[in-house]
């Protein structure tokens, strides 16, 4: 089956990102396809490469980056939500005249249309949120 996942909460603060990650891993292991993971609300913070959790904790952002790299998953951060919360890729930072960018590998910034398109293209859409 083809899935689109939506992650609506930030890392560490809330379990939804972990749950979505474990779901994605399990689905892939069973031979299903993850068409897209869309990060919205505070979920965009899952795409920051500047997160430094304590050494004995899981690396939420890196888990996603690694999963995307291993399985070629399309991971999209909503641009409107990202702009509010200070998530930038190089192009967006330049466009806004900002001195830094912080998006983690495997993520890309795009619009909400990607969420709707993902839901049209996929057999199931699953929302992980509060």
């Amino acid at each position, binding site marked *: 089956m083809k899935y689109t996942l*939506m992650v*609506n909460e930030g890392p560490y603060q809330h379990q939804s990102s972990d749950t979505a990650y474990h779901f994605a891993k399990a689905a892939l292991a069973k031979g299903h396809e993850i068409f897209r993971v869309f990060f*919205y*609300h505070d979920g965009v913070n899952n795409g920051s490469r500047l997160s430094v959790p304590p050494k004995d904790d899981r690396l939420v952002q890196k888990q996603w980056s690694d999963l995307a790299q291993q399985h070629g998953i399309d991971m999209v951060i909503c641009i*409107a*939500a990202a702009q*509010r919360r200070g998530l930038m890729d190089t192009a967006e930072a330049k466009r806004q005249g900002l001195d830094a960018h912080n998006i983690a590998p495997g993520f890309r910034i795009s*619009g*909400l*249309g990607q*969420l*709707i*398109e993902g*839901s*049209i293209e996929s057999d199931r*859409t699953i*929302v992980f*949120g*509060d």
Partner: protein
Amino acid sequence: MAVKKFMYVNRKAPYGTVYALESLEVVLIAAAFEQEVTLAFLDDGVYQIVRNQNPKLLGMKNFSSTYKALGDYDIKQLYVERESLIERGLTEDDLMDITYEDEGDDWAEKSSLTIVSRAEMAALMAAQDVMFSF
């Protein structure tokens, strides 16, 4: 592209968290995809469409007028759960006039709001292809 039935479920108050505002942003984008769009308001989400909102003292933007514009985006199916209204001491009269122009009826202005019971809401949800919950 196949047309799917999309439902946007609004469960949270309009201010206090950003969910309601950002839910509306998804709905407005979704309108461009020519899918069947339905909005549901339940739990504290019914406060999103209450009249005379004034979040000025909170320093928040009053975005409630956007709900009134949904008809212009061809979004005209807004379902409100009756039990959620009653539990909060609200009636239909406390809700904004949210309307659309019916092109099949000489552009007559009609209400986009339908008050439904919890059981009817459950049946509506069961009939959807895609549900987003905010």
